[in-house]
């Protein structure tokens, strides 16, 4: 009979942000360990969690491990016996190691000849006997964003057991019986108050609530169904989805009663609705209000205070305007008492009063007058302060607008926005509500009466934070500020990247403490979508911008704080990094790997002009379905390989070419090639690729009729030159030999 396995690790409150990942890990490690123990579950490992528990259940488990039979090879037969037929020490030793005589060994044929071998047979042990090993291994397998020492040890020979938070109980049942398991405590801590954690048929409910008996007492359970039912009676909703739905339901009901609705933008964008189910075991929503006078604060301040600092949901009216009300998710049973709501109201009011205080105090100092204070705020330890960054941004944003975007008319505005962009870092409001950096600067700049392009550019300059085409801000958000904003946004992100790379930062794996990937995504997104975002269609030379940004590190260095010396490796690392990020961006937008490879492999810039790369990708996608293009892509693999054979400088005059097929191709190259170049110069890449696809018949004929690698070196080099020129013409736009053709796949 197959039995149920139930494990619950009772912990002190695990961080909400870890919970989804830990729950997944718990299930995966259990499944993997069960497999390794040869008791693969007959079905999935179900997992559950609340802040105080990680639980897993397998409905049916085999009762025994699978038997093992394996063949272990020993010495070669040739080395196993002496001429007398007696076993050598090698053979005797091998047999002894496995506890048998030499005559019990088998002979097996291997590619290296016959070998002695021992056939090991092991009967599977009862599941109940191997399960204690499972839990120890799984606890060790769990990885946490931060490991904690809590004076715990396992007797698995590896000593200390770190975990995310202390483990306080273990429910460990197989077929309704307790599987013995214990976590020991270190010598230093062991005492009457610090004891082993032993597995038992016991769980614990909500800390403060119970339908009967004392809250927080031990509850005996024998099966998963009983476990779940008893937890519900003791105010623990084991399933996250159930907690989520209860929260969503009650939020809606309360918001309706208040005559509004939960601001979905706020709830979803901030991730709050996704976070609260992992903060509570038994959620209930309470509603509160705040004094309408606080509505005079900027909306951003109100929502940030509610969402990020209090985990409260803002309520908006039917027209989307903030109402002086909020909803709070509590970890209790809503019993109609107003106590909790009133206390939440007091906390929020205190915070909003603080915010009001900051808002009034901050506006007494102009952003301009805050710029000098930025030299007391560290930007990067090797590169210097935000004071230096502000000086760089002023110049780089001006350069972006005037030189890179060709809009000298907004250069002064971009420069002002650049100088002031970081000034809000030394306002009380941003020190308190760091999430508002940028937005707050924009709000203060607006209050000072700075022109709209400047305040809006500052307001949105941390954006975009993601590579997607629809990531905020939208053109509508930007209005008149679009070009100024684009100059500042690009300047800020580029400066951060260049300065961080100069300071030795390199994001690796999961380590990206400065969020450089996000910076790169934002930078590349602005450039890729520059016409849509800012109406700028002219090519932008990102390589030149990078050189300017790097030079500014020296030009704006603070006294006694020389910029790190530039090196070719630093530049190459940044190029590689940007290329990876740009590939990622295009993948996100649905371009195929081979298309991205083709454009990344072109002579024309890839990261050097991200928008141009996008245009060529779109053109390839457009032209790709035509049979001529696919066929040309196939032919181009030969063109590419052959063009590499040209070991001398390309020949000026191709006077030896005489075969009709090569003359035809030469003629095609002269006429069609010119048209391709003209289309490319107009950046009409779809037309350029369409024209290039027209080479196909001439190329096919050339390869059929002409033998290129003749002994006559002069003739051979002229033929190779023709092929090389053709290759250069197309690879300028894309290395179409990278395109994986349907023709090839179907072959």
């Amino acid at each position: 009979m197959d039995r149920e396995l139930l494990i619950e690790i009772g912990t002190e409150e695990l961080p909400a942000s870890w919970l989804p990942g830990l729950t997944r890990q718990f299930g995966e490690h259990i499944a993997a360990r069960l497999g390794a123990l040869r008791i693969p579950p007959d079905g999935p490992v179900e997992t559950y969690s609340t802040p105080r528990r990680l639980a897993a259940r397998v409905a049916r488990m085999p009762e025994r491990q699978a038997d093992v039979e394996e063949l272990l090879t020993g010495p070669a037969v040739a080395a196993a016996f002496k001429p007398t037929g007696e076993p050598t020490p090698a053979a005797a030793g091998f047999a002894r190691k496995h506890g048998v005589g030499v005559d019990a060994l088998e002979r097996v044929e291997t590619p290296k000849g016959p070998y002695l071998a021992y056939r090991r047979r092991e009967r599977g042990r009862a599941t109940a006997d191997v399960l204690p090993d499972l839990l120890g291994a799984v606890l060790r397998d769990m990885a946490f964003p931060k490991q904690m020492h809590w004076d715990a040890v396992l007797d698995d020979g590896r000593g200390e057991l770190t975990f995310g938070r202390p483990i306080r109980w273990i429910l460990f049942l197989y077929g309704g019986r307790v599987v013995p398991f214990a976590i020991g405590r270190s010598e230093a801590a062991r005492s009457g108050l610090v004891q082993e954690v032993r597995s038992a048929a016991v769980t614990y409910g909500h800390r403060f609530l119970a339908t009967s008996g004392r809250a927080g007492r031990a509850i005996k359970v024998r099966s998963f169904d009983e476990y779940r039912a008893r937890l519900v009676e003791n105010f623990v909703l084991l399933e996250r989805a159930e907690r989520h739905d209860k929260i969503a339901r009650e939020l809606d009901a309360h918001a309706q009663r208040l005559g509004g609705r939960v601001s979905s933008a706020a709830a979803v964008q901030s991730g709050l609705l996704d976070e609260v189910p992992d903060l509570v075991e038994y959620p209930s929503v309470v509603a509160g209000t705040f004094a309408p006078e606080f509505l005079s604060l900027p909306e951003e301040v109100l929502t940030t205070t509610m969402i990020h600092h209090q985990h409260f949901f803002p309520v908006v009216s039917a027209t989307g305007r903030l109402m002086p009300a909020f909803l709070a998710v509590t970890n209790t049973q809503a019993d109609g008492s107003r106590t909790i709501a009133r206390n939440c109201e007091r906390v929020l009011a205190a915070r909003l009063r603080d915010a009001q205080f900051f808002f009034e105090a901050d506006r007494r100092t102009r952003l301009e007058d805050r710029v000098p204070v930025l030299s007391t705020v560290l930007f990067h330890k090797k590169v210097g302060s935000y004071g230096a960054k502000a000086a760089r941004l002023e110049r780089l944003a001006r350069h972006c607008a005037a030189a890179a975007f060709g809009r000298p008319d907004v250069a002064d505005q971009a420069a002002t926005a650049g100088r002031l962009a970081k000034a809000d870092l030394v306002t009380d409001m941003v020190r308190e509500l760091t999430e508002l950096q940028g937005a707050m600067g924009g709000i203060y700049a607006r209050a000072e009466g700075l022109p709209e392009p400047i305040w809006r550019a500052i307001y949105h300059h941390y954006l975009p934070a993601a590579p997607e085409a629809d990531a905020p801000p939208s053109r509508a958000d930007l209005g008149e500020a679009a070009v100024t904003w684009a100059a500042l946004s690009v300047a800020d992100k580029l400066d951060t990247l260049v300065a961080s790379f100069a300071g030795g930062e390199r994001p690796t794996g999961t380590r990206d403490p400065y969020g450089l990937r996000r910076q790169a995504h934002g930078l590349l997104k602005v450039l890729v979508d520059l016409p849509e975002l800012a109406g700028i269609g002219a090519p932008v030379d990102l390589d030149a911008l990078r050189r300017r940004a790097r030079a500014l590190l020296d030009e704006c260095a603070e006294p006694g704080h020389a910029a790190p010396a530039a090196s070719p490796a630093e530049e190459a690392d940044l190029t590689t990094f940007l290329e990876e990020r740009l590939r990622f961006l295009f993948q996100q937008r649905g371009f195929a790997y081979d298309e991205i490879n083709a454009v990344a492999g072109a002579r024309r810039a890839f990261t050097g002009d991200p928008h141009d790369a996008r245009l060529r990708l779109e053109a390839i996608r457009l032209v790709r379905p035509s049979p001529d293009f696919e066929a040309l892509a196939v032919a181009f693999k030969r063109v590419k390989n052959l063009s590499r054979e040209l070991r001398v400088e390309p020949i000026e005059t191709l006077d030896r070419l005489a075969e009709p097929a090569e003359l035809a191709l030469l003629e095609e190259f002269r006429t069609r090639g010119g048209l391709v170049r003209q289309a490319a110069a107009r950046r009409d890449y779809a037309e350029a690729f369409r024209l290039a696809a027209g080479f196909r018949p001439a190329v096919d004929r050339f390869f059929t009729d002409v033998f290129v690698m003749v002994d006559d070196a002069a003739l051979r080099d002229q033929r190779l030159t023709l092929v090389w020129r053709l290759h250069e013409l197309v690879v300028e736009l894309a290395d179409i030999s990278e395109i994986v053709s349907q023709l090839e796949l179907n072959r």
Partner: protein
Amino acid sequence: MTFQDLILKLSAFWAAHGCLIQQPIDLEVGAGTSHVETFLRVLGPRPWSVAYVQPSRRPDDGRFGENPNRLFKHHQFQVILKPAPDEVQQTYLESLEACGIDPRQHDIRFEEDNWESPTLGAWGIGWQVMLDGQEITQFTYFQQVGGIDLSPVSAEITYGLERIAMFLQKVDSVYDLEWAPGVSYRDVRLRDEIEQSKYAFGQVNMPREAFVALHRELFDRHHAFARTLLDSGLVLPAYEQCLKCSHLFNVLDSAGGVGVTERTAYILKVRQLAVGVAQAYLQTTAPGAPEEASDR
């Protein structure tokens, strides 16, 4: 419940749970963690349970008595339990009940909040305890202090006394708190807040440069003297000089007298002292070392 009643209740509760009731350290500190009863006692293997009030100075939080929630100096009730008992969270919740907070009537949560003090070379893992949306306690399992890994791990419970008293008394301004019957927090503290804030932000009748130069000089002198004391084997006096440095750095920082690279350098200087003190303390309290004079 008055402010002083709250202190008495918590003291009685933790005394009944085996804590030594200590007094505040008689020096300027930013938190109860800086007290020798925490910073040094959590080092090494010896069990130790202690509780005390610690007036805590945060120059940067000074608001001239104008802000109802923010203070140059606030009061912490600090509990150290070494080793951390298995039931520590439950005991903590009982201490709230002892102060008249019934957990069944409120929403009490432990939300992730790890603590770190770069100047003390210390960090820990834990939570901020939220009571109906208000942070009332910092709860930390110390992992490292003075750069030294701790074994056993201590639990530190830091109650924000003003916050809890405001909750219990239902007042919106800290200055409206009743400290004792008929005596308000305003009566006791307001003048101190105004004058200390002015001092902390350098509003002194001397040029700013001179103010900054004076504090730099004081820092350097205490720093040098701490080294001398440490070299003389006087660990506890050396630690006091280290705390002086830490406070002077905080004043310099709030008065805007520290440049950005200097800031890291100052923190490092204080940390090196703290690490030196912690190491010397451990060496001289190791088995076989002479019993220290302050031992009971």
